[in-house]
């Protein structure tokens, strides 16, 4: 896998550097990696061959070649196929097969990789990623079914024509076809899944994930060795034992994606065939051809659904993650929008203490320069400077808490405290717009569970909306915002009642729809996001006309503890 992803990187590198006069060394490096891997894969194929069966149970070089083509741009394909020739010759000529047959096999192996890669690319353009049900389906249908079938028809014909193999044409087709299908599903999928997942993800994962992976693969390996590679497994229980690796495969599919599942399948495949080759395990004992067929059917029947399941899980997890990220971004966007609306007020909130600090310091300087500084006066000045400084830090702290981007953090919250914090943040705007705040906060409220930042953002949004509704529509002396909190039927209610012009009856129904706005410069996201946030807290947010004039916005949140 590592060598393959290295090859992929090299290929990509070469693509980006194609304007250089010598792109060849990069292709050569990728091709060399493929050649070495092809040679090793051929030896693995020999090792997994049931003697004196002429065709390997699992023939990995073709699958490796196809995976390399799928990861590389089409213009690199001929380099990679050419690189496989010396590796093919070096591996096959040791086995005493006639040279014509060896060359014929090279031709049919290349044809399989080419047919598969071309068909897959026709449906899924660009470098292949095993990351969705569609791409997995295309790979299984074209790469693991059509390509082995077509190349096996060709291969069997060549074998008959050269006259080297035994058996009739259709037997040859069946033998080669099944060993190549198994190789594509195990080795091909393994390479493609790991190339897509990347090794970087392994390093980023949490220690607990590493521990889980170790537990999974150790358990799977132990189970497989026990079931397939020990003599005592050859008893009446054998068919039932075939299911022993299944829980591990499901575990891998649900928790470790396509790469984890393909790795688990590879472990099952190698241990199964290794046991049969060495005459142990449930598949040993019968005729080699029957054993090979049984193993291939068993492994293919297990691998295909597991691969599809892992891909489907991965797709669903990704969709969920994207939805979560989208909501996070929207929440942040609306925070930034609120920040924009607030910025005038924030400047005022910071300017006040800064002014006090500067003027106090300058006064002290003048007093001292005029030798007019009494110690008591200087102490008073310093005391005021400290107070002003503390006030400025408090403004910064509240803003930081409000606009810090982070994950939702549920904790017990005092609603009155939230209201006080929000009023502190909005103070500048309330004053600038001459809005008088009338808080009526219940004395002993039960706590609610929620995210402090998100709930503050909702309240701030309602306060800012009320300010904008009243200024300039309402005369300054009548601009009043009543904020009431009280507990009722296991809920904590917070209402914001303004004395603005109110809303038309038709508007109340649409208020919480995204992109609905009554403001000239509004985004129309504030209330819909607020609604989403309150709903995520299992609460309700609604609007009603206020008594007299204006509008009332109410939040109801489930209480978590009874008041003392």
């Amino acid at each position: 896998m590592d060598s393959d992803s290295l090859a992929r990187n090299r290929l990509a590198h070469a693509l980006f550097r194609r304007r250089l006069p010598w792109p060849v060394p990069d292709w050569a490096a990728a091709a060399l990696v493929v050649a070495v891997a092809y040679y090793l894969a051929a030896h693995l194929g020999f090792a997994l061959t049931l003697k004196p069966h002429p065709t390997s149970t699992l023939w990995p070089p073709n699958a490796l070649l196809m995976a390399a083509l799928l990861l590389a741009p089409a213009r690199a394909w001929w380099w990679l196929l050419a690189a496989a020739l010396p590796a093919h010759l070096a591996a096959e000529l040791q086995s005493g097969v006639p040279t014509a047959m060896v060359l014929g096999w090279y031709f049919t192996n290349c044809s399989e990789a080419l047919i598969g890669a071309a068909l897959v690319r026709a449906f899924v353009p660009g470098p292949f990623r095993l990351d969705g049900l569609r791409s997995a389906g295309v790979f299984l249908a074209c790469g693991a079914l059509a390509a082995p079938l077509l190349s096996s028809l060709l291969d069997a014909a060549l074998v008959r024509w050269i006259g080297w193999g035994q058996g009739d044409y259709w037997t040859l087709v069946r033998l080669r076809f099944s060993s190549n299908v198994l190789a594509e599903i195990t080795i091909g999928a393994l390479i493609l899944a790991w190339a897509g997942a990347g090794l970087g993800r392994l390093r980023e994962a949490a220690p607990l994930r590493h521990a889980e992976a170790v537990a999974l693969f150790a358990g799977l390996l132990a189970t497989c060795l026990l079931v397939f590679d020990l003599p005592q497994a050859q008893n009446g229980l054998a068919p039932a034992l075939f299911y022993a690796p299944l829980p591990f495969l499901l575990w891998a599919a649900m928790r470790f994606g396509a790469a984890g599942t393909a790795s688990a399948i590879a472990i099952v495949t190698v241990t199964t065939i290794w046991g049969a080759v060495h005459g142990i395990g449930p598949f040993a004992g019968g005729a080699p051809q029957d054993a090979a067929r049984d193993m291939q059917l068993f492994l293919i029947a297990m691998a295909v659904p597991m691969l599809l399941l892992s891909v489907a899980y991965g797709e669903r997890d990704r969709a969920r993650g994207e939805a979560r990220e989208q909501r996070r971004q929207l929440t942040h966007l609306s925070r930034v929008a609120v920040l924009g609306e607030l910025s005038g007020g924030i400047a005022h909130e910071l300017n006040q203490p800064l002014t006090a600090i500067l003027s106090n310091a300058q006064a002290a300087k003048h007093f001292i320069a005029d030798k007019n500084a009494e110690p008591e006066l200087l102490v008073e000045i310093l005391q005021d400077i400290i107070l002003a400084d503390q006030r400025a830090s408090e403004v910064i702290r509240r803003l930081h808490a409000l606009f810090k981007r982070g994950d939702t953090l549920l904790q017990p919250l005092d609603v009155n405290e939230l209201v006080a914090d929000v009023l502190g943040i909005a103070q500048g705007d309330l004053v600038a717009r001459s809005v008088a705040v009338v808080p009526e906060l219940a004395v002993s409220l039960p706590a609610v569970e929620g995210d402090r930042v998100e709930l503050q953002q909702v309240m701030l949004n309602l306060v800012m909306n009320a300010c904008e509704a009243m200024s300039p529509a309402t005369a300054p002396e009548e601009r009043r915002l009543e904020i009431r909190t009280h507990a009722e039927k296991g809920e904590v209610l917070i209402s914001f009642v303004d004395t603005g012009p109110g809303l038309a009856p038709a508007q109340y129904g649409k208020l919480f729809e995204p992109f609905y706005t009554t403001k000239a410069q509004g985004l129309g996201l504030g209330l819909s996001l607020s609604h989403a946030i309150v709903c995520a807290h299992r609460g309700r947010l609604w609007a009603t006309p206020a008594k007299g004039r204006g509008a009332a916005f109410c939040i109801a949140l489930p209480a978590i503890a009874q008041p003392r």
Partner: protein
Amino acid sequence: MSSAQACVSIVDDDMLVLRSLGRLLQSAGFAVRTFSSPHELLESRGAASPGCIVMDLSMPGLSGLELQEALARAADPRPVVFISGQGSVDTSVAAMKAGAVDFLTKPLDDGRLIGAVNAAIEKDRAAREAHAARASVEARLATLTKREREVLELVVAGKLNKQIAAELGTAEKTVKVHRACMMRKMQVDSLAELVRLWTATRSPATG
């Protein structure tokens, strides 16, 4: 020095800022009074004493601009220096049009604040002096009899005694007596001086 008697009234709803500005202006040698709301300032009836007002533009209850209007209605002549944390062009233009001496943004530069306060106090002093001079002329005018007033108006219009006598239908000698009385009451020695006083009362009020 006039600024020694003049008093600077500071209005800001933020106690920390109010105290710091008070200290800063005290350290520069001004007499200072502080008010934490526009209503306190209006109720203090400080219009009679010389000085100026330094106030925050945005305060709850009554905004700075509204307070400026209220002062104008109360015939408080004291010049206003506005300070603001968030000076928009619109509000500063409105403030300056309504007669503000200066418009400073927080945090304040002490040099600029002291300069603005000095300019405001100077403006107040000049206005008060002009007002006082005019009031004294008006007082002198009020002591004239009806006939003396008629004579005065004709004299400053450049008429000779003979012409005045003809116009008023009296003897030239009588006009001379009225004229001498009028000059004495107006406390002037020359015609030129009389004309200057007279034009001063007729020119539009300043300050």
